[in-house]
């Protein structure tokens, strides 16, 4: 029997492997479906990664390279071109050129990452012409495969990937006509708004969405319109753009088909497994970290979180103990979700990550245990696009922990 199988060799899987190794586990296997380690970082050739972890600004492939080196130095075993098709408690089954292999293992770390929300989830009317890409697919086609995806482009969604692709397409000679965002604010980082849109005079239309896609074989144009506060298009505000390409940057979804097969409880808000402070799911010996757990905005936080999962998986493997005595963490006013959702009563110090549900300025984050205020943190600005965290000292948690925004 193996000690630890990690599903996914991207940012989360690599960091979890290194930390499990450094916590005393030697028998580790990383299973990766792509032909190389590094995951989505390999196609994220822009810079801005690693400011928290390495104190310098790296590109995606460089950031992945640092962790791959750590994995290779420790001689941690990994399998490439291997697709996990089933996870059960203490069992991982994958398909590769060797055929179908089932590994029996003491612990499992889920690190499958996330995928993009597709066009089908948007209900935008029109035919299904060529030229509609999710932003990440376009990124892969350009940066890995070396293809040009289009000449005149409209981008729906102002998340960071959409913004990064607006600049990338512009540098490669395409004309980006508009970025439309249905919300009244951008989900992307300020830095990306300035350096990807403003630098190239690309207009950002807030509270706008795509209402029509024209073209039968290839996209010929799209219409965008302003939306009201309930996100319904307002007649008479339509703008037509002649374009051959529409990129969709409309959100990321944790990829949890395997977690569901394993029987893990998922949170309807994060789309990822429900976990406690050790990042253990509700299935014995199955841990989760990174974008499979909840979508992050910075890879540094993925690495940090995955290291916690690696450490806890190691201590689970070595000691086997699994306390069931937990308190719940409740997202209150203005807080959309928290990870973890549970804390063990004897957990010691714990970091809770969370997202707010709206933009707040000059607000206070209040953390309570029952009625008792543990912490009040003043924040000049809070936005849904920026993950927040709060550290609790412990050592004991006796009542439910509540986190809310006070305005």
């Amino acid at each position, binding site marked *: 029997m193996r000690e630890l199988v990690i599903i996914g060799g991207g940012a989360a899987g690599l960091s979890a492997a290194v930390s499990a190794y450094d916590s005393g586990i030697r028998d580790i296997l990383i299973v990766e479906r792509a032909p190389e380690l590094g995951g989505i970082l390999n196609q994220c050739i822009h*810079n801005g990664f690693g400011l928290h972890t390495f104190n310098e600004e790296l590109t995606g492939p460089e950031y992945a390279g640092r962790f791959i080196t750590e994995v290779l130095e420790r001689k941690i075993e990994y399998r490439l071109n291997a697709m996990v098709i089933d996870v059960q408690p203490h069992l991982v089954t994958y398909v590769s050129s060797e055929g179908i292999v089932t590994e029996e293992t003491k612990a499992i770390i889920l690190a499958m990452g996330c995928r993009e929300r597709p066009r089908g989830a948007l209900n935008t009317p029109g035919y299904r012409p060529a030229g509609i890409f999710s932003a990440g697919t376009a990124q892969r086609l350009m940066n890995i495969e070396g293809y040009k995806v289009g000449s005149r482009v409209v981008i729906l969604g102002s998340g960071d990937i959409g913004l990064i692709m607006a600049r990338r397409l512009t*540098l490669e000679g395409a004309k980006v006509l508009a970025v439309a965002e249905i919300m009244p604010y951008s989900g992307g980082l300020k*830095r990306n708004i300035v350096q990807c849109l403003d*630098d190239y005079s690309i207009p950002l239309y807030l509270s706008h969405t795509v209402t029509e896609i024209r073209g039968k074989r290839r996209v010929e144009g799209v219409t965008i319109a302003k939306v009201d506060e309930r996100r319904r298009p307002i007649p008479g505000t339509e703008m037509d753009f002649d374009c051959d390409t529409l990129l969709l940057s409309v959100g990321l979804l944790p990829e949890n088909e395997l977690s569901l097969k394993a029987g893990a409880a998922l949170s309807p808000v994060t789309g990822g497994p429900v976990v406690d402070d050790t990042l253990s799911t509700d299935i014995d010996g199955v841990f989760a970290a990174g974008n499979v757990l909840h979508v992050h905005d910075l890879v540094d936080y993925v690495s940090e979180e995955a290291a916690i999962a690696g450490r806890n998986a190691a201590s689970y493997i070595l000691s086997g103990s699994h306390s069931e005595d937990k308190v719940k963490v409740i997202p209150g006013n203005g807080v959309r979700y928290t990870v973890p959702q549970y804390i063990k009563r004897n957990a010691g110090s714990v970091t809770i990550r969370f997202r707010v549900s709206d933009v707040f300025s000059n607000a206070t984050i209040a953390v309570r245990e029952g009625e008792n205020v543990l912490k009040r943190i003043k924040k000049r600005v809070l936005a849904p696009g920026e993950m927040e965290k709060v550290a609790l000292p412990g050592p004991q948690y006796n009542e439910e922990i509540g986190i809310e925004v006070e305005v």
Partner: protein
Amino acid sequence: MKRELTCISCPLGCQISVEMEDGNIISVTGNTCPRGERYARQEVLDPRRTVTSTVETEDSIHRRLPVKTVPEIPKDSIFPVMNEIRKQCVTPPVSIGDVIVHDIAGTGSDLVATGNLTE
């Protein structure tokens, strides 16, 4: 002359106004911390950016090699640098950190590999 900037130093994103006269800064307003003023001065007097892109490859399983400019180049040089990047073609082996072009487009910056290239 007035320049309007969005500060990128933190999520607050202050709108900063910089009053200019004959290429000199007269005043910086709208920032709420010293980082904002530093950002605004740099951005108005000598804006710089890191350009990241890919170059063509030959004899490799990888079709593109990712690259970046080190150190940052003047913002005005972005498109001249892209034109130079487009002319490059590399063959393996290349390792992260290898210089692909010295002093690219006369910027004084190097074009550096950010990925490994194998056969």
